[in-house]
């Protein structure tokens, strides 16, 4: 509330000599409102123009035949939705990425939490390790994917991964485009994503860890808890609940929105194609089929929303501690 008092103090001082017809209380409210719109307005405007208008327009387009146009005139009802929901390739991509989410979300969470706990307990060079692990998060997904593809897992015998395998006498693996039985592209994609995102979530969890008051641990020791697993399970994890829920929700949304590294590592292949990459290739890119593309994008948004709400319910997002 101190901010409110400060802003209202200025006009009050300026109008000190004027008639006191308007009550100071009312004027204070108006000043606050002005400041609110001043600060929020530009962002709200940006949000409306760049987020809400496109979403509403996508909704409109999804009910029209919008081929090579964004001002369509042929209303087709729910045909675009029916087409997308009977398109085995699109459904396949949704299924693949539900599985991908089920795998990558807990994996990233466990690794990020493990690193956060280790760094939190580090006795020296804590800032160094924190920065070193966080740095990949500052790298673009595209750049990360290209490093993975061009130098580490490039599939020729002098690639980094194949050189290592070669030391053990193993033949070069065509990581991203092989014909064997084992899906070698998954380790590539998963390690790229882990490398790029673990540092960021580690920082969030580290901040959460530092919020847990030390006296909780002391109280636990007094009650006979042993340091290690026991305090981790009964003090650290509950103390991190709010942060963890936020991290898990962000991770899941990220998993469904996967685009960059899949696009750059694998391109348009049926076996590991995220829904967004599929929509890009068949509708929203050069194909200009904005009706089907919008329908697909909205189906994807709906799934993300439902899964997120479900997940938030289960984990108790927003509940007071």
């Amino acid at each position, binding site marked *: 509330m101190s901010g409110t008092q400060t802003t209202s103090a200025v006009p009050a001082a300026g109008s000190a000599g004027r008639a006191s017809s308007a009550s100071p209380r009312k004027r204070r409210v108006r000043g606050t409102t002005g400041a609110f719109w001043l600060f929020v307005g530009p962002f709200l405007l940006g949000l409306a123009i760049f987020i809400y208008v*496109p979403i509403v327009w996508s909704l409109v387009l999804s009910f029209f035949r919008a081929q*090579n146009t964004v001002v369509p005139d042929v209303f087709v009802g729910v045909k675009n939705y029916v087409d997308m929901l009977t398109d085995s390739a699109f459904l396949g991509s949704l299924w693949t990425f539900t599985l991908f989410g089920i795998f990558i979300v807990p994996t990233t969470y466990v690794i990020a939490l493990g690193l956060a706990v280790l760094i939190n307990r580090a006795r020296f060079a804590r800032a160094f390790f924190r920065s070193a692990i966080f740095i990949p998060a500052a790298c673009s997904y595209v750049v990360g994917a290209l490093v993975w593809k061009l130098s580490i897992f490039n599939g020729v015998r002098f690639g980094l991964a194949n050189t290592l395998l070669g030391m053990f006498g193993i033949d070069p693996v065509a990581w991203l485009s092989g*014909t064997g039985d084992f899906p070698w592209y998954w380790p590539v994609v998963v390690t790229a994503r882990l490398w790029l995102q673990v540092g960021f979530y580690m920082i969030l969890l580290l901040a959460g860890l530092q919020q847990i008051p030390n006296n909780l641990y002391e109280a636990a020791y007094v009650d006979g808890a042993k340091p290690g697993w026991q305090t981790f399970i009964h003090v650290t994890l509950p103390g991190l609940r709010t942060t963890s829920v936020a991290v898990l929700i962000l991770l899941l949304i990220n998993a469904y929105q996967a685009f960059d590294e899949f696009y750059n590592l694998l391109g348009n292949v049926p*076996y590991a194609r995220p829904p*967004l990459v*599929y929509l890009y290739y068949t509708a*929203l*890119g050069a*194909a200009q089929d904005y009706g089907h593309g919008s329908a697909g994008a909205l189906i994807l948004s709906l799934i993300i929303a439902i899964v997120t709400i479900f997940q938030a319910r289960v984990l108790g997002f927003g509940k007071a501690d």
Partner: protein
Amino acid sequence: MSDSTPFSGPFSGLSRRGFLRAAGGVALAGATGAGLAACGSNTGRASGGSGTLQQWYHQYGEQGTQQAALKFAKAYKDATVNVTWTPGDYASKLASGLLSSSAPDVFESQLNIEYIKSGQVAPLDDIFASVKDDFTDADIKLNTYEGKIYGIRMIDDPQILYYRKSLFAKAGVQPPNTFDELIAAVKKLSTGKVKGAYFGSQNVITDHIAAYFAAAGAPIITDDHKSGVLDPKVIAAFAKLREFYTSGGVLQSAPTEWTDPSAFIQELVAIQWCGLWALPQIQKAFGDDFGVMPIPAFGPQGKKAVYNGGWTQFVNAKSKNLDAAKKFVKWLWIDQTQYQEEWSLSYGFHIPPRKSVAAKASKLQSGQAAEVVKLAGQYGFGDNIAFTPKMATAIGDAGNKIIRSGADPKTALTTADGVVQSELKRLFG
């Protein structure tokens, strides 16, 4: 060189930004288009004003091409021409740009039926009639729809297989005529460090669909607009491709795609699929120790194939300066033959589509370049304008499942056939 690669088809290099633009462009076509026009725009001269034409190019990789485009624009006296040089995902930027208020008046691309149906390209018969005989039938066919011609071919880029003569001699193999011979050859050519052949990594099916169908001797889309996907020759061809990819003689993955000759130049393989554009680099690396050949035929009913990619000039039918735009296109791509030769051969390495220009081009008259020109004339074929990105994805999916996971060719192609049929129904009713 890979970014210079003007192979035609629905896919070229794309970026996340390009994607977001396309997606955001759904609602914000105006704003997006303005942003695109501002980025990379360079006027050939100082002043703008009314009667200004907007001309869009994708980013050619060769040094000097952009300067040449600006030079041509500046040399035109009847209008101011603003050249927009577009790095990254040109196809998507063009797609959203054409919907915006700052759409190009003149642009390069490859023709598809949607462009025509949505009025994004203007018929050019009036300016083209006088030189029709000077263009190859193939180039005219792929720019013609229902008797009207919509684009003027700017460059032709045939795709062939490059091979190392010395490695062939050492292994005792002859240039193969059929895929069976090719499979036998790559097995013999594979020695510890060198593999037999490289056709590409991730885009090995999608980029080559047209060529595989041609080599199988079956059209993807028949002349009466039917799907040719389930032709027994096609099914057999995809089974043969599986055999080829699992023969042990194929380099399945490399840092660069087939559009870049690096895998061949670094001596990772004895045969590589690439385009005419790579010939100068390959010549520099190996001198005379290389040859070119068409894609071998699949079985006795198939035929050898050379896919002719390239770029074509179009006029936006919705342009406010339609007549001025057509006049400019006629000037640049029909009247100024010296510029056409310069565009094809002074920076990169392409075949000029004009027979009279190609005949004068000394660089194309000797060595392997002459051989490529000969093969392109003998076995060359171009895109089908009814082939859509959705069809490419469906057939690419089927192909990937067949060659990578050993799926049954008929089952996999049946799914693709369904998509091709529904696309054809959408296009032709």
